[in-house]
């Protein structure tokens, strides 16, 4: 028995299969004039709270649905369903991010002809969700002022990929050592053109610019 050593050139992207589903999703949504946003943050940054508040403000402007990515529980989906939001739960059974195929299947279960906007709440984690394209129009980085100012420098991929940053819990600023100018500077250093919308669920500050930004995403989709 003889053994011959050979080198096999592969050049295969590890995200290839995922990206294929993502492009299917893009085509599906584009044909129907639907915009899709992918909310990414650490656990507890305020994504679900932001969506709860968005629901009431958006109701008169756009028809929308939420896809809730969660590792194990359905709490967040229940919170939104209670407000009358059309919401589908995506359980990742342990995975730390949503993949394009799962999202695509969930979209097919939605009444797409009656929707303008789909907002995906990704699994709470700043690393993996930024890696996986799910066919969204824009990634939204959600960052709360209870986290470090330097999160953008620590997780550059997300802040490079995102189209907007929503800085949450700004009502807490007076009680925290968090430096807002420093945080904004770090965001600019990673991605100079990235807009930042500052919001608070308590004072409702910033909700109008946020909802306007959502509406603009939909307009650019149909325009």
């Amino acid at each position, binding site marked *: 028995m*003889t053994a011959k050593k050979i080198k096999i*050139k*592969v*050049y295969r*992207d590890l995200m290839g299969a995922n990206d294929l589903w993502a492009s299917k999703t893009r085509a599906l949504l584009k044909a129907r004039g639907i915009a899709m946003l992918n909310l990414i943050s650490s656990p507890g940054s305020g994504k679900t709270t932001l969506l709860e508040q968005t629901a009431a403000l958006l109701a008169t402007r756009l028809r929308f649905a939420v896809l809730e990515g969660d590792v194990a529980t359905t709490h967040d989906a229940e919170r939104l369903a209670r407000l009358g939001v059309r919401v589908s739960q995506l359980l990742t059974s342990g995975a730390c991010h949503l993949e394009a195929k799962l999202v695509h299947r969930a979209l097919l279960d939605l009444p797409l002809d009656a929707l303008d906007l789909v907002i995906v709440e990704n699994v709470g984690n700043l690393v993996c969700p930024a890696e996986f394209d799910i066919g969204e129009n824009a990634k939204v980085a959600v960052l709360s002022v209870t986290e470090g100012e330097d999160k953008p420098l620590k997780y550059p991929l997300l802040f*490079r990929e995102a189209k907007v940053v929503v800085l949450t819990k700004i009502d807490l600023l007076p009680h925290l050592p968090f430096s807002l100018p420093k945080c904004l500077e770090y965001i600019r250093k990673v991605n100079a053109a990235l807009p930042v919308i500052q919001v608070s669920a308590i004072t409702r500050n910033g909700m109008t610019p946020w909802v306007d930004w959502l509406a603009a995403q939909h307009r650019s989709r149909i325009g």
Partner: protein
Amino acid sequence: MHEVSICENLVTTVLKELAQGGKGAWRLKKTRLVVGLLHQIVPESLTFAYEVLTKDTPAKGSVLEIRLVPIVARCRVCGWKGEIHDSLFVCGACSGGDLETIAGKELFVESLEVEEHDG
């Protein structure tokens, strides 16, 4: 966690390639992976995940070789091109921030080294 999900894709890709050699004909010695630094992968974690995930597969016993690619960006304003360090996407010439990432996002299997057995 990050490394494990990436490694799952890696092992699926490798096994698919190996199967092309025909049943049991190729014995995998080495997998060469190219990873851009923007992925913030810890090579040791990826190597460990690779060992665990290939254990009961035809890729068992093979070595994972990781080539890290630095982050390189190009300034859309003045054309400067250079490496990015510490997440600072700032032009080295005009100090502007309108930069396009041209390297550092790679994540692909470059090649496999196999032993072919006949007889």
